[in-house]
């Protein structure tokens, strides 16, 4: 693993609960280093997405402390929080594309919010979508894309601004095997360049094929990081 082993994220005794219901996650401790790569597995409803919400600073912990890029999030003001979030890329399980924007504009959002100039934005976005095989669909609205294509747009949006932390929630759920492999290679590439990557998945196939540490979640508790599940080799990227 290249890149300094700087701590990007640290959870200490974190609980998460929605409303008045019992906590969905209990007493989590987790540390993510720059350039690390983890799978996050567990049955449906176990709390994978909830954990990613905590890590992406989109839901506050009900108990415990969360530190990102060395800062404790309870002590950060709103403006700084926005800046920190610009360094985190998220592939949402439900994509969350903006229906009224084209594929191009959806992918351009993080660059524009980050204040990149339009020329650079146009180049980055077109390159990224072209590489994903959507070069001829730049102006299509999400409703005019197949589900797999929408998922690719969502992934493009998460990685286009070169985040230091990439969180992908079931990123290949609607994507065929060939594309899935290309995507995994992209994630691996980013991890080699220093991005910390976490991929939530219920696909036994992925866990088997790629030799990375697995965080397993069950009944709201985290086990792991476990060492890679199988001894299979793969990941030619």
């Amino acid at each position, binding site marked *: 693993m290249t890149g300094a082993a700087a701590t990007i994220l640290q959870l200490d005794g974190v609980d998460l609960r929605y409303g008045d219901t019992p906590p969905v996650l209990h007493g989590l401790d987790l540390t993510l280093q720059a350039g690390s790569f983890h799978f996050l597995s567990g049955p449906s409803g176990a709390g994978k997405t909830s954990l990613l919400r905590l890590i992406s600073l989109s839901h*506050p912990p009900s108990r415990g402390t969360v530190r990102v890029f060395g800062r404790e999030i309870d002590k950060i003001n709103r403006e700084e929080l926005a800046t920190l979030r610009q360094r985190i890329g998220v592939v949402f399980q439900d994509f969350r594309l903006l*229906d009224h924007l084209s594929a191009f504009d959806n992918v351009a959002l993080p660059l524009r919010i980050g204040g990149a100039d339009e020329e650079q934005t146009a180049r980055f976005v077109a390159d990224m979508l072209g590489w994903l095989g959507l070069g001829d669909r730049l102006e299509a609205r999400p409703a005019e894309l197949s589900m797999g294509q929408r998922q690719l747009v969502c992934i493009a949006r998460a990685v286009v601004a070169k985040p230091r932390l990439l969180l992908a929630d079931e990123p290949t759920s609607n994507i065929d095997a060939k594309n899935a492999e290309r995507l995994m290679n992209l994630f691996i590439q980013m991890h080699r360049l220093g991005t910390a990557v976490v991929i939530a998945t219920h696909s036994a196939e992925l866990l088997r094929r790629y030799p990375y540490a697995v965080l397993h979640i069950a009944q709201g508790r985290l086990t792991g990081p476990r060492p890679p599940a199988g001894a299979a080799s793969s990941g030619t990227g």
Partner: protein
Amino acid sequence: MRNPDLDLPLETTAFGRFLLWLTAGLVFLCVLAFAVAAIADAQLTALRQEPRIVTVALPPNPEPAAARREVDDVLAHVRALPGVAYASLIDEAAFGELVDELLVDDAADRATGGLFGARMPLPRLIDIAFNPGAAIDLPALDEDISTLVPGATLGDSGQIERSRERLAVLFRGVAGSFGLLLLAVIVVVVVWLTRAGLEAHRQTIDLLRQMGAGDRYLARQFEQHALAKALRGALLGFALAISVVIVVVYVPTLLGEAPLAAHELAPVHWVLLAMVPVVAALLATLVARLTAHHGLARLR
């Protein structure tokens, strides 16, 4: 490739759809209300510009010297009062003519000396003109004068003018308050629409935040949208209202009915009316911005 300010699809929800039309409707009503207030104000000014004249009638006195003294006493007393512009005896021949005119229509008759000639003893009338806007205590004046000259009475020609004046004040007050109320309604509507917009775009806002958009980035979109829509709506409402004022005020004037006297509107009134849409649009923009900031601060 596209305008980067399009992130929030404000066009598609109530905020974008209705801001223009509601602003137009409210500014329309607001301008009408202020126009009524301005017309009332113009009439009030006109009424107050007219010197108010009150007439004192002294009973006939056959003795010329005593009669002259009575008139002089009253004139001296009245001229010393504050606010009196002038006071003078109406000359008797002129008064005779006035009486003739009142009762005889025919000029020929009048030329032959009228019904009464000039030999009848007539009451002597004194006109007192007050300065525009002077506060007059008519009951006290009445009492003073009947003390000076027993049997002297104060005409009440000022009464009608004062009633019209009070009516104009009432209209100006009611219409003006209504106009201000409508500006307040615009504020309420913009607050309400902005909140509805925040609510409707809650998910998009959350998404943009997740990508690192700050409050300023988000609030600016509401503000710019509000400015564009409210300004267009306000100008539309203003144009409609001014058309109505012109139709309602000038057309009857041309038809000779003249229920309202808008030709008396001063330039300052027109300037004030023209400021209504500008004020409304700026108010809407400011309120949208503040509401958006406030609402965004509360969303997590």
